[in-house]
């Protein structure tokens, strides 16, 4: 298919762009296969380049012959384009609609994108599973891409085996491991699987206990039995204790996000209405639930030295939220940029979180939700909450989290395409697209993501999960609804202070060295 077929009007002059907190721009609107571009053709004004993939939904309005298109993006931004001429406007609107909802993955921008930078370190070669687990000797690793069963698609009991992973080396010190899986397929008549029992029990030494954290309530887990799923019977897994937590299923999340963003976008709300809408969206409750469960998992490992197995239904959504957050709490390595990338690679991409399905639509989706859900965004929100409570313990800042959110939903890079490793292999992403990591890890880019306050902290960090400690993530949800000038200035000021302090430290050190040198030179003279 040619993109040209979809582009009825490639260019319109005299289009006016309105963005909140920015001056309006008048210029020429161009549509390409992957971008919506507005350029004023003046050197000093910023151009707008918007990926079609970033467009969540559009609305059109007409006043006389002046058409207006409201473009709502997956990164939650809302912009308005005033387009003279009804026909042009209709053409543009239908083109945008078609181009932003392309079905075929291979038509996505990453397959067309050629980097303008030199790839020094190929992100596709960066994270090899053996590396991540190299300190675990007694563990045999299962490679999903070698198995015939597709990773992430539940099928019989192998699912459990395949999805069995362990935590970082840090936890093996006390021989406690963290594992994740999908639910066991016990069904209503209590089927058993000797291999699964053997495998799960084998991870515990004699006399050690373990906890199975089921992210579903007992009622939901019971219900799952009727569909062939279920949970571990204690009698069959004698060393394990099962705990149920109430993390909402992913389909409920989408609704929650839509409600939250709707509340954030209405500036006319009175305080009462705002607070009640915030409450009704339930988003903050979900942040609290997930963090609480992650703390519980971390606590089992850190306080009791017990092993933990986390699962929900398929082990690709709430399970990953819990295991990855628990690692951020426990393991200082996950709080570095590289470590966090490893975490996303291992606990999300390779663990088979279905990014393409979950991130197909964002908060402005108006159709019937299929399988989209902001599972990953919610995880990033939880990371932000911990980062806010421990502002000196992370090597990265909020910008890195926001960047991941943007790229998960729309990107020039291939990293978040596909739903599991097998699909990615099939799509030949590593040959045909550029990895996000190739770009992020360039020193020029990294600078933007560095937290100036970072001081490595080797301790376990326990976030407070009290409701008053958990705030709305303004950096994402209010990003386009207020000016951040003053907050950005504060960050700059912070960097200045730290730089200045470093400078002074260096001066002190060099003076100290000089002094020491002078003292050793002088001392023979002083002694008579």
């Amino acid at each position: 298919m040619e993109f040209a077929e979809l582009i009825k009007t490639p260019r319109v002059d005299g289009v006016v762009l309105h963005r909140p907190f920015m001056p309006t721009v008048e210029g020429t609107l161009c549509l390409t296969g992957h971008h919506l571009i507005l350029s004023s053709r003046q050197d000093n004004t910023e151009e707008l380049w918007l990926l079609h993939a970033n467009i969540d939904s559009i609305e059109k309005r007409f006043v006389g012959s002046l058409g207006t298109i409201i473009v709502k993006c997956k990164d939650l931004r809302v912009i308005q384009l005033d387009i003279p001429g009804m026909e042009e406007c209709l053409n543009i609107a239908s083109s945008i609609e078609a181009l932003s909802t392309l079905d075929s993955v291979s038509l996505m921008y990453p397959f067309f994108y050629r980097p303008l930078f030199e790839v020094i370190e190929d992100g596709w070669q960066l994270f090899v599973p053996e590396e991540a687990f190299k300190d675990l000797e007694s563990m045999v690793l299962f490679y999903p891409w070698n198995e015939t069963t597709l990773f992430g698609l539940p099928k019989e009991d192998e699912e459990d085996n395949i999805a069995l992973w362990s935590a970082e080396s840090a936890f093996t010190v006390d021989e406690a491991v963290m594992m994740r899986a999908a639910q066991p397929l016990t069904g209503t008549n209590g089927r058993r699987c000797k291999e699964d029992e053997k495998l799960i029990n084998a991870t515990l030494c004699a006399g050690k206990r373990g906890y199975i954290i089921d992210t579903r309530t007992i009622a939901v887990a019971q219900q799952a039995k009727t569909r062939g799923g279920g949970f571990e019977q204690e009698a069959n897994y004698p060393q394990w204790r099962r705990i149920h937590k109430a993390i909402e299923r992913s389909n409920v999340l989408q609704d929650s996000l839509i409600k939250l963003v709707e509340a954030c976008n209405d500036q006319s709300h009175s305080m009462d209405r705002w607070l009640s809408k915030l409450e009704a969206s339930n988003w903050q409750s979900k942040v609290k639930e997930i963090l609480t469960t992650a703390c519980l998992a971390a606590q089992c490992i850190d306080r009791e030295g017990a092993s933990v197995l986390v699962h929900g239904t398929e082990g690709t959504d709430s399970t990953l939220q819990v295991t990855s957050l628990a690692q951020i709490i426990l393991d200082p390595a996950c709080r570095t940029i590289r470590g966090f990338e490893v975490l996303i690679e291992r606990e999300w991409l390779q663990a088979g979180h279905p990014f393409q399905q979950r991130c197909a639509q964002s908060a402005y989706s108006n159709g019937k939700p299929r399988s989209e859900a902001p599972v990953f965004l919610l995880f990033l929100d939880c990371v932000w909450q911990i980062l806010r409570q421990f502002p000196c313990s992370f090597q990265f800042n909020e910008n890195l989290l926001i960047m991941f959110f943007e790229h998960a939903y729309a990107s020039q890079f291939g990293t978040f395409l596909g739903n599991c490793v097998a699909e990615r292999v099939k799509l030949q992403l590593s040959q045909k697209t550029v990895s996000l990591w190739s770009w992020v890890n360039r020193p020029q880019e990294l600078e933007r993501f560095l937290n100036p306050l970072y001081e490595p902290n080797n301790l376990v960090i326990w976030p407070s999960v009290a409701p008053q400690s958990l705030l709305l993530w303004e950096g994402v949800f209010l990003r386009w609804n207020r000016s951040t000038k003053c907050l950005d200035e504060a960050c700059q000021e912070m960097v200045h202070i730290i730089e200045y302090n470093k400078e002074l430290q260096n001066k002190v050190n060099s003076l100290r060295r000089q002094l020491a040198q002078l003292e050793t030179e002088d001392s023979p003279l002083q002694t008579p």
Partner: protein
Amino acid sequence: MEHIRTPKVENVRMIVTPRKSTVGTLYLSSTHTIFVENSEALKETWVLHSLVYNVERLPANSSGSPLIIRCKNFHVYRLLILQEKDCLDVLACLTRLSRPERYGELFCFSFNPNLDKELREKAWGFIDLKAEFSRMGIPRNLWHVTAANHEYRLCDTYPSELFVPKSASPAVIVGSAKFRSRGRLPVLSYFHRDTGASICRSSQPLSGFSARSSDDEQMLQAIMKSNPVSEFMYVVDTRPKLNAMANRAAGKGYENEDHYTNIKLQFIGIENIHVMRNSQQKLIDVGELAAPSMSDFLWGLENSGWLKHIKAVLDAGVFIAKAVAEEGVSVLVHCSDGWDRTAQACSVASVLLDPYYRTIKGLMVLIEKDWVSFGHKFSHRYAHLDGDPKEVSPVMDQFLECVWQLMQQFPCAFEFNERFLIQLHTHIYSCQYGNFICNCQKERRDLRLKERTHSLWPHLWENRAEYTNPLYRTGHSQTRGVLKPLTTAYCFNGNLPSHSLAPKGSQCHRLSMLKCPTLQQKKRLQPGTKSGFGLYS
């Protein structure tokens, strides 16, 4: 000492969290409750009696009698006392000591930081309001100090020196005072040099349904004319319109626009002290919920109405600041008596308008001017003495929170940090210094507070390194000009400062450490405990 039956109780358990507690000895002095841990460190916790809000005894159980001490600065101490009799004694004693009946019983009269007489006098001169009015750059041909309130003859809740328009004759001044509640006539609170517009304040006029006073009308006219470029002025009634209307039935009310030439009346809708008191109580209740869910918390926050009221106060300030700075129009602000909502609105507007009030010294000056000198009823509002509970209201808490909310939006604009606001809050209630005792200047003079007590300001000033915002830098764009905050509901951070007292912001803390090496050393030298007023033990 006559109220202390049991000066010492041993084996008292202080419950820090449901899982963490320490055992120690409880001492009752005439001014403090002191808990000394049995541990080797002998960690001490000092609780000032005047900071105690209430003491509650729960039914005794097998492990002892629980006693909860709630403080006005939102600290809560939970004790477990072995013998019920001891518990009852402590309860009776604290209940009495935390509710002094006479000013003479207050801590400030016994608090002695070892300053000689001369230093004490000098300390009281640290904040000089005369100097402040001349700093504003008031044009002497348009405004002057009137002697009308000499010896508080005209209005006993105002300062004796008042700035009024030069064109207002003594007869007009007296006549206007007679037409205002409690004689609180319109006088100058802040002059904005850049535009020549001013903020004046007063109480409500005694207009009822039809009364008028040509003196009062002339007074407003004089205020308007002292801003030569503007053709009208705003009268901001900070009350909800309905409340203002109800006051007419009592012979009070608001200005009739037909009688006063060239005024524009604007209602803002800040609720009265009773609504605010209940709102804060509801908020405190939310804070005391055991393991609340997110919904419990957000619902409780909404139901308390606290942030709605904070927004109303800020909105009032924003309206006034905009009129003065952008329109160049003078504003007269009043509520009923002109000592609560009026003080809030004027001082928030001043913080927005004038960068000076965003400095450490400047905020002290502002509080001294708009609150202390203009007769904000500190002793009534903050229950310094055992009195009418209906007079108590967190008016100043709200002002401090407004400043805190502004700090969230403009992190580089304020010289002081959150800790400074918390310290101010504590001392407004503590009665340790004389600054906030009594309800007006006249009472303070009659009590000879300056001779008998100490001033808080120099004490805070000496420790200013601890209260300095590391991000503040003179010359930064945020430290200049007028602040224009957003007051959309979602801009209000639900993370309430007054209720999460421990100054968190390890971020801010680390930067302070970098910026101030002496502070860093000090911290190293005094590790560990930070307990109440331990310094003066």
